[in-house]
């Protein structure tokens, strides 16, 4: 670990801290339909959208109608993506003449992008046409992010409003989120990325002559090795920058290319890299301020922020430490950090990012439900790779996915005040709302669905040949690969221990199922909580109220998150990464 590495990490957290208040205020204004400086441009567009789609601006929905509208939108837009993938051969903007995507893969990908997971069992540069990338995949980056954010807003409204069953209009919230929150920053962000070298064109791939032709060994289909001379390089192109911005800002994470943000055309410089991780945390962090502002308890918002920042810092420290120590099994190599190299475990990492930026990116992308990667998590050291796993297992509530992080943490807050209530023997309250049996049941349902999905599918996959045959790294790491696949799917993250061959019938369908369960069986209980809270009276604070501000509450929140996560997943972790770490130190390989 180096001083310069720490400087980057601390500077990053500082930038996120400084963005929280302005973004939080802006989002409050957007969703409360107050004036913003973009109204002169966007208000006319908004009206056109409502006129074309038949949205009634005066209509407010109960939580059930809101849920139905959300499900209908997800279903219809998922069907359209599936259709585009299945017909891309006959559609325009396919200069590489890619065939239609296979049904299993097309369905898995449609589920994955609709649920904001962006799990990818394909290589973008050899599978998807430019039109599929733009109108199918990048579009869902916008849509699924907007759905996540408006759900968080509904939960906040549920806490803030009293004695009503009206929570807002799904179509209006989504439209305002798309136009006011996502679009402006993506336009600016795309251009910043292009200025750094992210490509943005619709040209066919470029063929260049290599300066020095290369002789390479190729293993044919019959298993025989032959030598070939390679004289050319085919450079993949595409409309990458426009997708890159929303990929990070909407915590989607699906790469244009297979290598995702490790690819020089997706993430060319340390500066573009820094900008990407800032975009990932911007909205989730801002929403904590929105929570405080809309519920009238700014100190509660900051207490939640502090709990998140603590868990983020713990994660990045562990990951940075583990990767900087390097791999003791690589004899004869120099892995010490110096002025001339970053050293450490460089397998699967880029030189321009080195260890510190790879560790930081991996922590951020799994704290949030982003899933973009700038280094390959599968090649991380065992403990280094365990941090992303744990981050997702905790429910991605450390800032978290756009919206999903906030409604996720509210679930834990309800659990925390419930536990505090049990300890002091009083009915728990949350910002003046009584937390009753129905709310706690819904909170537990949201947590248990995640647990059952992850452990259930993993258990089946590690004992059946259709699951184990996809494992590429033998030994305890194989278990980590399978576990990561379902953790990432159920958590709607989308990053992977990518050695696992996920493009099989079993993995395409089971991960899609895990993604849909993890998304919608989280959202519906959360909406039910919002509906239930909104109906309640607000009670004045009394001497017996457990405060949801300050250090005591933040610590209780952190403990609740860690204890739930540890009780659920420690056995699995001890058989995977922890065992692999001990065996690696003992000099064992597989």
């Amino acid at each position: 670990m180096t001083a310069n590495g720490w400087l980057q990490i601390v500077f990053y957290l500082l930038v996120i801290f400084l963005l929280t208040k302005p973004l939080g205020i802006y989002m409050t204004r957007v969703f409360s339909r107050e004036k913003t400086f973009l109204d002169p441009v966007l208000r006319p567009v908004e009206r056109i959208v409502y006129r074309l789609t038949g949205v009634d601006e005066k209509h407010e929905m109960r939580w059930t109608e809101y849920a139905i509208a959300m499900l209908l939108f997800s279903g219809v837009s998922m069907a359209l993506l599936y259709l585009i993938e299945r017909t891309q051969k006959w559609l325009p903007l396919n200069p590489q003449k890619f065939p239609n995507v296979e049904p299993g893969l097309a369905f898995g990908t449609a589920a994955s992008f609709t649920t904001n997971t962006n799990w990818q069992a394909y290589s973008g540069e050899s599978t998807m046409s430019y039109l599929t990338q733009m109108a199918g995949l990048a579009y869902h980056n916008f849509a699924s992010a907007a759905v996540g954010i408006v759900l968080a807003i509904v939960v906040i409204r549920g806490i803030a409003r009293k004695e009503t069953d009206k929570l807002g209009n799904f179509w209006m919230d989504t439209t305002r989120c798309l136009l006011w929150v996502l679009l402006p920053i993506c336009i600016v962000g795309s251009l910043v990325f292009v200025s750094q070298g992210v490509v943005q064109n619709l040209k066919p791939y470029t063929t260049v002559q290599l300066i020095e032709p290369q002789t390479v060994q190729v293993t044919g289909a019959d298993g025989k090795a032959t030598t070939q001379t390679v004289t050319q390089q085919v450079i993949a192109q595409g409309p990458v920058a426009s997708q890159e911005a929303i990929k990070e800002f909407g915590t989607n994470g699906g790469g244009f290319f297979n290598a995702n943000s490790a690819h020089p055309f997706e993430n060319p410089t340390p500066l573009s890299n820094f900008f990407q991780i800032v975009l990932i945390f911007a909205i989730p962090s801002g929403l904590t301020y929105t929570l405080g502002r809309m519920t009238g308890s700014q100190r509660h918002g900051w207490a939640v922020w502090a709990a998140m920042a603590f868990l983020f810092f713990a994660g990045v420290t562990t990951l940075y430490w583990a990767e900087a120590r390097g791999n003791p099994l690589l004899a004869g190599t120099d892995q010490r950090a110096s002025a001339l190299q970053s050293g450490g475990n460089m397998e699967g990492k880029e030189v321009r990012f080195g260890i510190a930026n790879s560790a930081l990116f991996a922590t951020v992308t799994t704290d949030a439900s982003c899933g973009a990667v700038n280094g390959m998590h599968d090649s991380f050291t065992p403990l280094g790779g365990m941090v992303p796993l744990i981050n997702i297992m905790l429910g991605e509530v450390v800032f978290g996915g756009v919206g999903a992080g906030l409604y996720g943490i509210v679930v834990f807050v309800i659990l925390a005040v419930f536990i505090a209530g049990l300890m002091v023997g009083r009915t728990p309250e949350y910002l003046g709302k009584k937390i009753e049996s129905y709310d706690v049941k819904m909170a537990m349902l949201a947590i248990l669905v995640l647990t059952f999905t992850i452990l259930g599918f993993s258990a089946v996959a590690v004992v059946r040949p259709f699951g184990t045959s996809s494992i590429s790294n033998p030994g305890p790491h194989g278990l980590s690969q399978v576990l990561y696949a379902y953790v990432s799917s159920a958590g709607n993250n989308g990053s992977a221990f990518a050695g696992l061959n996920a493009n099989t019938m079993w993995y395409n369908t089971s991960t899609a199922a895990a993604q849909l369960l993890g998304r919608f069986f989280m959202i519906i209980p959360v909406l039910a909580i919002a509906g239930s809270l909104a109906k309640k009276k607000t009670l004045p604070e009394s001497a017996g109220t457990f405060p949801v501000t300050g250090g005591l509450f933040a610590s209780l929140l952190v403990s609740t998150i860690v204890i739930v996560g540890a009780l659920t997943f420690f056995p699995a972790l001890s058989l995977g990464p922890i065992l692999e770490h001990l065996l690696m130190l003992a000099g064992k390989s597989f």
Partner: protein
Amino acid sequence: MKKNLLIAVWFTLVTTVIFGVLYPLGITGLAQLFFRDRANGQLVEKSGQLVGSGIIGQAFSGPGYFHPRPSSAGTGYDPTASGGSNLSPTNKTLLERVKGDVQKLQSENASAAIPVDLVTTSGSGLDPDISPAAAEFQIARVARARGVQEDEVRGFVKKYTKDRDLGFLGEPRVNVLELNLELDRSHPLR
């Protein structure tokens, strides 16, 4: 329900046009207008022929060239098949591969331990850079093969070493393609 279904259909179509078509096409237009070279991949020409992209690595194996890192993209540095090895740190395949590369490099330059980036694959398989340590390690071999003083080659390495962005972001790095093109210009291989 029926009303919301109708809205869902129209809403999907209208927003797909705005965010899936107009937005990326608009960005493409602006990018081509303001950052033409960068938006098209910073392609590099040598005597009128395209020879690569300034930010995508390509393979070099002759003694007179600086070598990039090993690559897992296709048969090596194939931009239509980007990706890492995804080998775990305890995987024998990885350990054997690194062992083989270490032995080969030690026969070239026995005086130093091998900088780790020179025997590990990158995440993209297209890493255009090596660390300054990995460049320093290869200077003697390149100088010998081209019949040039080591200090002169060291000067070129320095010229193509990029410092951290804004002085503190990322890591110092040497662009292999640019460096090799410079060597070919100033000291062509015989």
